[in-house]
């Protein structure tokens, strides 16, 4: 979120990335673990930087050539500093471009870290925003977090898709929404909910064909909770869901290890779900809650 609103909001940086580079966006938790060709190439590049212990995060910006030679590692959030480093890397690349390099053929594909949306299923774009409760700040980065709208994807299986088409909201889907998507991910990677954190959960399709629900989540330590209502609608044509919208609105409290800085006490958190049309490259990004265990996410 921070980078989208600061680093990549600098027009000159964007122009350089559009015209002089091949830009790629990764959740490095995948590539640093992948036992396959892509993972090998990522680790070759990252191992030349300071974050070369692949049991921990390798987060940052990297610039490399097609041979895998690292030209830059930077994890500084100063947009102007990154712009200067990008320009320097471009000069370094021009002075010593790789010779005789061929495209790397993907010989191995690690199935655990290469997942696709369920065939015949649905992808819904999930967004969350804290509507109120923050103290005023003059800090530019804090302000970005306070106004942030997060993004994740909800995956729906073929069987669940069919059930919705028949006017039934699947219980497993309701559980998945509650555990992995009713989270405050507006400041970073959020803790998900355990199944025992679900104190109340009801999502159903009414006689009028509307989606209605209520949820009450509270973790075991009772230092994080969300009590909310859900409302939505969908449209079915020839047994297939062609439109779907769902809104969850309620009171959240608490924060996680990587989501520090939540408003004090209870605060209103809105979460929206909208059927993806596949036009956004992010529509194919796996749900955060499925990372490394898709079957657990879908169960």
């Amino acid at each position, binding site marked *: 979120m921070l980078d989208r609103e600061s680093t990549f909001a600098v027009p000159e940086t964007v122009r350089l990335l*559009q015209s002089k580079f091949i830009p790629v966006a*990764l959740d490095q938790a995948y590539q640093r673990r992948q036992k396959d060709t892509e993972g090998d*190439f990522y680790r070759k590049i990252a191992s030349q930087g300071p974050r070369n212990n692949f049991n921990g995060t390798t987060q940052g*910006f990297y610039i490399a050539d*097609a041979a895998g030679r690292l030209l830059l590692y930077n994890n500084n959030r100063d947009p102007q500093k990154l712009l200067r480093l990008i320009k320097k890397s471009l000069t370094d690349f021009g002075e010593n471009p790789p010779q005789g390099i061929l*495209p790397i053929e993907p010989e191995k594909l690690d199935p655990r870290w290469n997942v696709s949306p369920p065939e015949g299923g649905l992808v819904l774009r999930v967004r969350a*925003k804290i509507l109120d409760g923050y103290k005023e700040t003059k800090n530019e980065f804090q302000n970005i977090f306070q106004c942030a709208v997060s993004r994740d994807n909800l995956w729906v299986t073929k069987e669940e898709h069919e059930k919705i088409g028949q006017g039934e909201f699947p219980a497993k889907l309701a559980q998945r929404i509650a555990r992995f998507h009713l989270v405050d991910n507006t400041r970073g990677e959020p803790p998900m909910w355990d199944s025992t954190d679900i104190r109340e959960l009801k999502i159903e399709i009414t006689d009028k064909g509307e989606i209605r629900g209520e949820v009450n989540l509270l973790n075991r330590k009772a230092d994080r909770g969300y009590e909310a209502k859900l409302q939505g609608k969908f449209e079915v044509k020839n047994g297939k869901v062609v439109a779907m919208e769902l809104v969850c609105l309620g009171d959240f409290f608490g924060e996680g290890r990587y989501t520090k800085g939540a408003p004090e006490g209870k605060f209103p958190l809105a979460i929206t779900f*909208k059927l993806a049309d596949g036009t956004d490259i992010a529509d194919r990004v796996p749900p955060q809650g499925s990372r490394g265990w898709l079957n657990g996410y879908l169960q």
Partner: protein
Amino acid sequence: MRYSLSAFLTLLTVLAWGSQPSLAQDLSASKCQALLSELDADKNALWRSIPWKTNLLAAQKSAVETSKPIFIWAMDGHPLGCT
């Protein structure tokens, strides 16, 4: 004893949590539409104009074909997705 105390504290929190008035507004149909619109993506955001790839080998192939360097945005959580 430790479990009993923990259960008691949880109960207190649940009771306190439930007794506070809700800060969120009612979820009417018009409120739903307003939130869907408010939380929708800004299609004109500058970072969206960057032609991001999501596979490093695809990026390497393009880098070979165009003689350009690769810029990798590697985050905890997918930069285009999570958070």
